[in-house]
């Protein structure tokens, strides 16, 4: 089952509520004039045109589990007690990676340099939420496949740099997911470039 799945174009609607929440909008508190709401909508639409979501995924068997340590094929290990706990019932892992592409990052930088930070923050929030939604999209895709196998994904997923899963693991994700094929690079500090690129891991466990 160890093979790379490639998604050349992930088509999703911008998750408006999540974008607004990320920008600090609070239902019942934040007061938005109609023209401000229209400008926000237009900017999210502009961000949508700048974001090109692509992704890859890889199913890998878990060779062994020890407390705080998940062993994968090819002498690879993920060290994290929290991840090990999430994967307690899992026999496989599903690695996921997605990128929003370089165009939106360039637009954010250009806007920030040209005194249009107000638009840049909307682009930033929209790209962040869209790339996250791309991971949700891939999870939905695999959930459908897995249901027919009598399996399912764990309820949550984990990303490098969160909890006790060190950001240094990003190299393992980057290599296994072959994110370089989309022009994504990994810096010496384990940051994915363009910045609106993410990776995550979920477990595959029996449904019954």
């Amino acid at each position, binding site marked *: 089952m160890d093979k790379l799945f490639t998604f*050349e174009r992930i*088509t999703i609607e911008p998750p408006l509520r999540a974008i607004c929440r990320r920008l600090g*909008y*609070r239902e019942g508190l934040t*007061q938005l004039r109609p023209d401000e709401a229209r400008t926000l909508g237009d*900017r999210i639409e502009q961000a949508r*045109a700048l974001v090109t979501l692509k992704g890859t995924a890889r199913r890998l068997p878990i060779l062994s589990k020890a407390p705080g340590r998940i062993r994968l094929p090819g002498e690879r290990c993920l060290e994290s007690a929290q991840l090990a706990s999430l994967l307690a019932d899992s026999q496989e892992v599903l690695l996921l990676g997605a990128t929003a592409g370089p165009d939106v990052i360039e637009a*954010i930088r250009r806007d920030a340099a040209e005194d249009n930070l*107000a638009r840049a923050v909307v682009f930033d929030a929209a790209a962040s939420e869209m790339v996250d939604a791309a991971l949700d999209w891939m999870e939905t895709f695999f959930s459908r496949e897995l249901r027919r196998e009598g399996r399912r994904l764990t309820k949550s997923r984990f990303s490098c740099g969160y909890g006790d899963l060190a950001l240094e693991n990003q190299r393992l994700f980057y290599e296994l997911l072959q994110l370089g094929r989309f022009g994504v690079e990994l810096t010496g500090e384990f940051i994915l470039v363009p910045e609106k690129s993410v990776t995550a891991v979920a477990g595959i466990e029996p*449904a019954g």
Partner: protein
Amino acid sequence: MAKGHRKFLDILGRRPLILDGATGTELQKRGMPAGVCPEMWCIDNPGVIAGVHGDYARAGSDVVYTCTFGANRVKLGQYGQADARSVNRQLARIAKEAVKDRALVAGDIGPTGRFIRPFGELDFEEAVSIFKEQVHGLLAGGVDGFVIETMMDIQEARAALIAVKETCSLFTMVTMTFERDGRTLNGTDPLTALVTLQALGADAVGCNCSTGPDDMARFISAMRPCAKVPLIAKPNAGLPRSSGGATVYDMDAAEFARPAGALVGAGAAILGGCCGTTPGHLAALRKTVSRRKAPAPLRKSLAALSSARRTLVFEPGRPLVLIGEGINPTGRKALQEELREGKTALARQMARDQETAGADLLDVNVGVPGIDQEKTMQEVVLTLAAATPLPLVIDSAKAEPIERALRVYPGRALINSISGEREKLKRLLPVAAKYGAMFILLPLTDGGIPETAEKRAAVVRTILREARRHGFTRDDILVDGIVMTAASNPDAPRETLRTVRWAAETLGARTVVGLSNVSFGLPERKWINAAFLAMASASGLTAAIANPAGEENLFVRKAADVLGGRDRDAAGWIALCAKTRDPARRAPAETLPPPRRLREAILEGNREAVGGLIAECLKAGADAAALAREIMIPAVVEVGERFGRKEYFLPQLIASGETMKLGMEALEPFLQESSREAAGRGTILIATVKGDIHDIGKNIVALMLRNHGFRVVDLGRDVAAERIVREIERHRPRVVGLSALMTTTMTRMEEVIDLARRQGQQCPFIVGGAVVTRTYADSIGAEYARDGVEAVQVIQRIIGPAK
């Protein structure tokens, strides 16, 4: 009637056709372990799958599906099985023997689990070949028809349908899986799926899996008004949920069958069950609907185009359709160069621009001499199919690029065009029919362009007669009025308009013109074009090929819709006017005194007004320093407070901040030197630390600080500790701000502070960023702020009140 269809249609003539229920969950119940290949397990345990088929047939299913959902070489290959044809043949035979004459057997084709270009990496022809292998096996096993099911990707459904249609003429059903939001995972809505698949030759279209019967009625209702074929509903037994570690479905047989009447009422003529349903569910379903008539399709033909994500129906009374003409290399050197180099980025950009400008459809022409137009057309069409939701118009003088485009385009396209030239007609009509495309009928012949409307009408009738032999109706065409240049023939525009009027009123067909030809050779062409557009619209024009970015075309088109009764309550016109009125240019209420309006402008983030208001205040005698101190700074403080109370969110905070910045720049030349010093709060040095490239948060902090009178030295991102310390020595800042977003770069903050201290710098530090916490800040001897507003407050606290 096509061969093999009668058995299905006979039942549909009497009552709804009943399919089977779930196979996978039934097999699991009957002993199939998790994780095995279901198809191979069934071959090893034929009695079990035969039992499932037999039970469904006995429960009243008219059609059972072969257990070949995953029997394609991609999925079988994952279990080490290579002979897809043999697996399909064996499983079809098991199904036929299990049901004998009690039910029909449909060869089941499911997704490969891979996405096809343009949505994935799998080549379209490879996908067709994968499915053909399956089709051949199923045919050898004796199936009565086919079902392509649980498709998430319209392109994959198309590949499978083409595989069946190129192999046999058996009755073929296609069902897609829609999420609760009413779209497939890949963004296709039910109506769009219907329009694309029925045009391509599906004999029945519908949905399966994903939802229970209640939600599915919505999807069927959306398809019903445009359906030329029977509609299928095969819902789950409710929504899956986890219970005690197992996936369960809530609806028992009676609950599942209860909404079936509503599904038939919504338009479903073919019903069955998906995940969680059992022979018991199907028996109850059959009982519930067996006395109902199967709803017949409402349409015999349909004038509609689709992309992968959108449908455009040419309904009577619809506003004028605008076909964007931009993606055409004629006269566009940059596009010619791009296409020659095999690039598609400019075409994608042009598609986006035309979409933004209000185009409904996009014309695509790649006619550059000397290039492989067939290959180029495929690449451009695939690129645009993923980049824009607008349906495409395939424009070529050659037949091969058109055929290639129609094969790979994941929608129902419009061909531009098919004329009465003998060879072209003979070559293109079968191609258009095979892929179910609409076409622009160009009334010219091998003898040239007829001059009068009457002669053009005669050519239209001849072509239409030929087209009817291939199954086309007048709903499948748009008659081109043929626009000639007014400058060279003053009668030409009139003949075009007469052709349009004849086609619209006498023939009852849709019409189109390529607008810009009319003004060729004349000055100020846009006005001639716009006037002609209005005249053609009044003559019954359906669509115009034009430049959507031209404001005159946009307004004339929408105005013509109002005057032609095609814009109910002038809603489109009013929306257009509201959109083009720039909201950001609202001036604060004129009745308020200028300083109040200046304050309002900052509170509202009105960048355009602030410079003028400052000039007005100064002209009225206001003191520049007092304006800053008493009006502008309190306003920006008020903005921060509103942000703190969540009354403002980030875009408002920043819009106000940028307005304040512009205001301060406008005020700067009028401030006395002494005022400048008094207003100045000192220097703050900020940077994103080495290794980190995220800087939007730092930029916000810089903006906030500047607006509160601080001089900010922003060193940018990815800045080494040594440089930060050098700049501290140089600028002597009152506070140093450090930003980092990642756990790996956050530690660099401590390095910077250590280095500064070692070199004798005692300035205070403030840190922030996504992963930075107050605890961490304390541990490295720094202050902490969670956002720009708090950063200003903390720094003000550190350095004390302003002088």
